[in-house]
């Protein structure tokens, strides 16, 4: 017999049992398991393991996006499965006050994410403007006699790029972070993704101030005149700002 489990998408404040009209992981029905004023949003699953495939990840985020339109949502991380409905109910019971407190603390707030990347041409332009070193290196690379020499020259050129990038990081990216932090309830720096990433940050903002926040992002971008690319994602559930340690369910 297949092991049945309950895949959990998140926790909302909802006293009524509801069945939603959007599908979950494996196209299963999405519904609530309630305890007093709170509900866990789940779908049944027979999967012993949840693969982080595009399809499964999309199902997880699509359900959360739909919930976020109607509710304040405490998002569960991807791939969380309880053994049965009773276990989910006990999670709600055992963590009731903590979850409710967190829902109220985050009420009316959303997460947005901003990534800033340096623009290749702008860095090259700045390097060429400063000195002729880059052009000299380029010429040498084309006439170098051995792979080792090429590698050394490339490494030297890379060092030049790195110094510019480090400079931009402290001068521009940190400024962007500080200005946006002012408009936020909370802010958090994440690890950079890739070599071109100057800033990877998450902000918790009042839903009502999202337009203002976005306008500020556009304004900052315009001010940097093509030096950097901005990538803005939101609204998102507050993944980075939920700060509740769940009590393990007692059997």
């Amino acid at each position, binding site marked *: 017999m297949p092991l049945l489990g309950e895949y959990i998408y998140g926790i909302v404040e909802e006293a009524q049992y509801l069945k939603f009209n959007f599908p979950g992981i494996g196209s299963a029905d999405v519904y609530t398991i309630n305890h007093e004023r709170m509900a866990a949003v789940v779908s049944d699953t027979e*999967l012993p*393991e*949840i*693969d*982080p*495939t*595009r399809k499964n*990840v999309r199902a*997880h*985020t699509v359900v959360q*996006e739909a919930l976020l339109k109607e509710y304040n949502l*405490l*998002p*569960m*991380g*991807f*791939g*969380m*499965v*309880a053994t049965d409905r009773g276990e989910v109910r006990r999670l709600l019971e055992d963590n009731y006050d903590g979850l409710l407190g967190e829902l109220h603390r985050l009420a009316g707030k959303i997460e947005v994410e901003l990534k800033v990347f340096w*623009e*290749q041409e702008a860095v*090259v332009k700045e*390097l060429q403007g400063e000195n002729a070193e880059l052009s000299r*290196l*380029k010429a040498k*690379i084309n006439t170098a006699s051995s792979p080792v020499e*090429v*590698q050394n020259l*490339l*490494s*030297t*050129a*890379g*060092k030049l*790029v*790195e110094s510019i990038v480090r400079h931009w990081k402290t001068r521009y990216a940190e400024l962007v972070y500080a200005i946006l932090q002012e408009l936020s309830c909370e802010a958090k720096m994440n*690890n950079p*993704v*890739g*070599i071109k990433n100057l800033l990877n940050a998450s902000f918790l903002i009042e839903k009502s101030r999202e337009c203002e926040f*976005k306008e500020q992002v*556009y304004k900052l*971008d*315009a001010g940097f005149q*093509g030096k*950097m*690319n*901005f*990538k*803005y*994602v939101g*609204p998102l559930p*507050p*993944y980075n700002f*939920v700060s*509740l340690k*769940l009590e*393990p*369910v007692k059997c």
Partner: protein
Amino acid sequence: MAVQTSMASSGLAEVLDRILDKGLVLDAWVRVSLLGLEILTIEARIVLAGVETYLKYAEAIGLTAPAA
């Protein structure tokens, strides 16, 4: 304008970076297949050091070793 805005990230590694180990997590309930994960996130989380980093920076502005 160089601001790209969207409701959701397009890249899978990018989304996973947000939704794994973040939000509410109950260790006993994690049922993610780890094998698939390593392949997906290795690129996004790779940390480079020394010469390797400089070569990456050179590559990022279009400088690579000429074809032999």
